[in-house]
């Protein structure tokens, strides 16, 4: 009898362990933010198999959790960045200057998401920046902070975001970008300007 109980207990523990490890490796449990690795250009990470049959089971699970209804690379590519130019995690306790230039796509946008891949719960109406706001200028800049910027035309609010990431969407990317993202992507830089409450340390 005890052997049978022990067998069922061991079986249940094995199944539990297997399921929990699956949830952890795919980002559904305890692993914040999306985790791409296929393409990495100066910290902006993506995966060209997003949305396609070519995506492996782990990538498909991660996308389902962090980018449901994503398009294939021919229509759109998605780059995510979770750190500033010095490799420190992005957090609402700090203010950043985001600068960039023209992008190799018909239309692009940069949107801020919290660690649960949600738009942060605020009513600032400053969740993203896109090409139609910027126009056709060669260089642009924006402030990412929890308080409205006074010295910049463009502001992305990080209020109530905690640790966050920025997602660069490129719709109708050029073939050159798909072939050689390392040389074609005009990577926006993220400079940390300062932090509240000693978070600068």
């Amino acid at each position: 009898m005890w052997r049978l109980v022990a067998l069922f207990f061991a079986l249940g523990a094995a199944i539990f362990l297997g399921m929990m490890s699956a949830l952890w490796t795919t980002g559904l449990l305890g692993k914040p933010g999306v985790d791409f690795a296929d393409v990495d250009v100066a910290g902006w990470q993506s995966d060209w198999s997003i949305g396609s049959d070519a995506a492996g089971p782990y990538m498909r699970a991660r996308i389902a959790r962090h980018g449901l209804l994503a398009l294939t690379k021919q229509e759109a590519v998605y780059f995510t960045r979770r750190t500033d130019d010095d490799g420190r995690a992005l957090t609402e306790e700090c203010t950043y200057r985001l600068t960039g230039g023209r992008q190799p796509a018909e239309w692009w946008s940069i949107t801020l998401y919290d660690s649960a891949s949600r738009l942060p719960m605020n009513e600032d109406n400053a969740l993203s920046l896109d090409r139609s706001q910027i126009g056709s200028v060669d260089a642009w800049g924006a402030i990412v902070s929890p308080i409205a910027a006074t010295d910049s035309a463009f502001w992305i609010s990080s209020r109530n975001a905690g640790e966050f990431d920025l997602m660069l969407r490129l719709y109708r990317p050029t073939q050159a970008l798909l072939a050689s993202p390392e040389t074609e992507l005009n990577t926006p830089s993220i400079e940390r300007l300062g932090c509240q409450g000693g978070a600068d340390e």
Partner: protein
Amino acid sequence: MNKWVIALVMFVGCAVIAHWWTVRAIPGFVMSRAMDTMEERGLPLHGFALAPLATPQSQTVVRPSPDLSYSICRFHIPDDYGGLFVSAAPFDGYGSISFFDARTNNFATVRTRSDAPTPFTIVGPRHVDAVDLSSDVPDRTGLVAPTRQGLVLIRRLTATAAARDRVEAIAKDDVCQLLPYNADLLPS
């Protein structure tokens, strides 16, 4: 062989099987939950609904873009129906119509037209063998849905209030409806 070694191998084997099964089940599970949420929020089956502009308060899926409008049609093609007819109203800005199966695969995406509707016939997986998709019906594109359930999503760029007004005016002309099984309606 030592019985403890056998027990350890069985334990690891069960854990690996559970791990693999869970990883493969996640996309379908997440998609099912998303569709349930959409249903709870009133999105109809076999009909397009223009979702409210994505805000922190209205988001129903992860990572919505606040610069795009989303017209969504949930579909579930019964065995006794041939498929689905889908058409996107013309829009004079960036727009795309994309198709997702119940496992989250984006099985087709096409740019919407600005001068005329963009029509499709989607054939349910049950009728795949009966349909020749090598040629399309002249005025529409034929697609095979890998699963009976899924979503059709029309994205339109609405970064400005004027663009949003234009989308609200034309989105009512988007069409998503079941087709009875009739060879004349299917791509041949």
